[in-house]
């Protein structure tokens, strides 16, 4: 017992791990594994590095040496001659410092820039409850009123207009509740459509007019001809998507319906819209829509474009939602039926909430596509960012500026679309784990 001290040597503390060989550690190991893992990979790596270097060597000096402070291209060239000599090629970013506001807002009055910005922020806040889970349901109220506030912020005019238009929807809701209790849901639905329409036709305008005269609260009215640039792209894209949502849901349901005529009408509508390029539809909006409406009707091009874009997006939206409907397990439909719900009840309470939720990534992707496609309105004379770049080049000051404007426009589009697509990928991942 006492002899315990006699024990042989016992190591008290462990030796620290040896440094791994230099080739198996840190950056060297990483490079060996990721860049030079074989002769093919090594060649590819070297080629890629050369390619990147070649591209950057051409672009970077031009971009970084750019001139930011000048009032015209001629002045830009004079400054360049002074600094770099006449043969150098550098960007003339001055066109952006002078015209960035036009590229973003079009001809919107500069003292009112806060309005579209605020509308965009409001829109962002209003969609968060839809896009992210775990936000209190109170915020849905904000989502419901946001379109009216955004509209009022953008176009201005009296505040009573949007308020009393919104009142129509409330009236419809009330009518639905009252009439469907008294005379069944079909009568309720009909009442919910007729009451607001009658209200909008006969009561809305006089009330708004009278209140507007009595209490002139409002913002300065800004006509849509002043809208342009990225603001226009956003407005067309966002309204197109929002308005196409209900239409898309109806078309998707129609396409799934057993009723022959409704089914075929939906299929034909969707296929015709999807089979023809957007640019042809835009030309239709610009050249032909006036033929299809009663003689003498005429309204501004932006509204016509929004109508056409809405119809266009609705067809794509219908396909996205159809995918969502098809992805629901059959048990959900059967469960709804077994509870004794009728068609609209089962759709409203069981099917659509789930189908729409899983369609959100697809809807966001549709939105990205639509947002990019808004650049096509340049062909019918609306001043979107590309249209404005042409208009800017048409001034004597900036005639001859080329790449700078395209780079700015491309960069802004990239930032917007990239962040949205990242969000939709995030959502896809989240939804996938939910179902496994």
């Amino acid at each position: 017992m006492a002899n315990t001290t006699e024990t042989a040597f016992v190591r008290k503390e462990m030796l620290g791990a040896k440094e791994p060989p230099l080739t198996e550690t840190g950056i060297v190991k990483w490079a060996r594994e990721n860049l030079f893992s074989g002769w093919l990979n090594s060649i590819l790596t070297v080629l890629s590095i050369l390619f990147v270097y070649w591209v950057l060597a051409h672009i970077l000096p031009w971009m970084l040496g750019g001139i930011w402070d000048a009032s015209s291209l001629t002045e830009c060239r004079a400054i360049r001659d002074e600094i770099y000599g006449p043969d150098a090629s550098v960007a003339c970013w001055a066109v952006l410092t002078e015209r960035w506001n036009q590229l973003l807002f079009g001809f919107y009055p500069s003292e009112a820039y806060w309005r579209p910005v605020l509308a965009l922020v409001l829109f962002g806040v209003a969609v968060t409850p839809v896009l992210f889970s775990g936000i209190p349901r109170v915020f849905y109220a904000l989502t419901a009123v946001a379109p009216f506030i955004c509209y009022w912020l953008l176009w201005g005019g009296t505040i009573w207009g949007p308020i009393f238009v919104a009142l129509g929807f409330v009236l419809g809701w009330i009518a639905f509740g009252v009439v469907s209790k008294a005379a069944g849901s079909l009568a309720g639905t009909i009442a919910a459509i007729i009451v607001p329409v009658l209200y909008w036709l006969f009561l809305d305008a006089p009330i708004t007019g009278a209140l507007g005269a009595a209490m002139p609260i409002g913002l300065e009215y800004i006509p849509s001809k002043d809208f342009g640039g990225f603001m226009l792209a956003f407005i067309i894209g966002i309204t197109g998507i929002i308005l196409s949502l209900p239409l898309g849901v109806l078309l998707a349901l129609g396409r799934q319906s057993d009723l022959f005529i409704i089914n075929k009408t939906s299929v034909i509508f969707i296929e015709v819209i999807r089979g023809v390029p957007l640019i042809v539809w835009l030309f239709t909006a610009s050249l032909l829509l006036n033929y299809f409406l009663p003689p003498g009707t005429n309204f501004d091009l932006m509204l016509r474009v929004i109508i056409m874009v809405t119809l266009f997006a609705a067809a794509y939206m219908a396909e996205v939602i159809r995918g969502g409907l098809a992805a629901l397990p059959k048990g959900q439909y059967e469960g709804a039926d077994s509870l004794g719900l009728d068609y609209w009840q089962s759709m409203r309470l069981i099917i659509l909430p789930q189908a729409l939720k899983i369609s959100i990534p697809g809807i966001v992707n549709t939105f990205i596509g639509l947002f990019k496609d808004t650049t096509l309105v340049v062909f019918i004379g609306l001043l979107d960012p590309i249209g404005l770049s042409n208009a800017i080049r048409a001034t004597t000051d900036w005639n001859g500026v080329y790449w700078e404007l395209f780079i700015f426009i491309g960069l802004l589009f990239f930032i917007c679309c990239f962040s949205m697509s990242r969000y939709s990928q995030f959502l896809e991942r989240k939804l996938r784990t939910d179902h496994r």
Partner: protein
Amino acid sequence: MTTLTDPPKESFRLSQLIYDTRYRSLTIQVVAMFLLVLALSWLVSNTIQNLAALGKDFDFGFLTNVAGYDINQRLIEYDSTSTHGRAALVGILNTLLVAFLGCILATVIGVIAGVLRLSKNWIIARLMTVYVEGFRNVPLLLWIIVIFAVMTESTPSPRDFREGGSASMMLFDSIAVSNRGVYVPAPIWAEGSAIVVAVFLLSLVGIFLFRRFARARQEATGQILPVGWVALGLFFGPALIAFFLMGRPISLEYPELGGFNFTGGIQLRNSLIALWLALSLYTGAFIAENVRGGILAVSKGQTEAAFALGLRPNRTMSLVILPQALRVIIPPLISQYLNLTKNSSLAIAVGYMDVRSTLGGITINQTGRELEGMLLLGLFYLITSLVISGVMNIYNNSVKLKER
């Protein structure tokens, strides 16, 4: 024995149309049909009234009038004294050409980029990510304009090919890359060339048959025949023999610098190449994402099993992963092909004379027949889309997993 009594005669009440599910669907359809017809007749009557008010008629006669404008790229005979109808046909062929070329190149780019994005090589994977995200998130119109401009800026103009110029032709003076397009030698068909072509086509059939034979044999016996070498031999051998036997009936006409431009040879115009590249790169980025998704959808066990069998990575990819991924990839691929075809209508941005710029552009502009022109244009795109999706759906059904 069994007493069959007539069911009690139900008297039909009007309210059954709404409340009885047997009749309700009928009621709804009749109402929908009625509303539809009403809406359509409203539109048509408006159109008729509007046309009358403008003093216009609805007439396709303008298609037989002289067009009066020139088109640079024409696959069939056309000059400025031809009719508008023929101009539209030239445009249609141009649209189909760029769409066809675009679909092929986009698939190639898409598959390569999709596979490379999953590569272990860090820098390659990153480069492909930059490519895919860059093209997916910037409007196609911008890319078309930018690629067109980059091509014009970065290639020499024909003037530089003159004596003392900075540029020279490639491949023994047979190909010239200029900023007006790429000039390649054109074949001249002399007598007897038809036989050479026939032999060549026959050897193509031979290659196809041999591949089927080799495959059947491999599945039956496990023996692998050298398909690649035999195919290569069949591809060149018989045609070359026929070529020399017939006394070299096919010769090449080389492009030459004469006057302002190259003359002779075939000119692939810059507008075509730029549009083709832009459409392919843009659509290729989307296809790459589909391919990547398809590959990731194949479970990892498949790869590991293939490795365990001793297959090399590239054979694993081509024999095990891609065939399975194909089933996931093809349905979105169809819609990408449709998108590419529809997006070719942006050709006007680079001055490529597709059907949108001839029929839907200059013709409408000169004749003022926007209603008829847009109708024809829409119909063309609609039919093209339906044909493409029809053909691709047949293909899809043939590769789909047969579930029994």
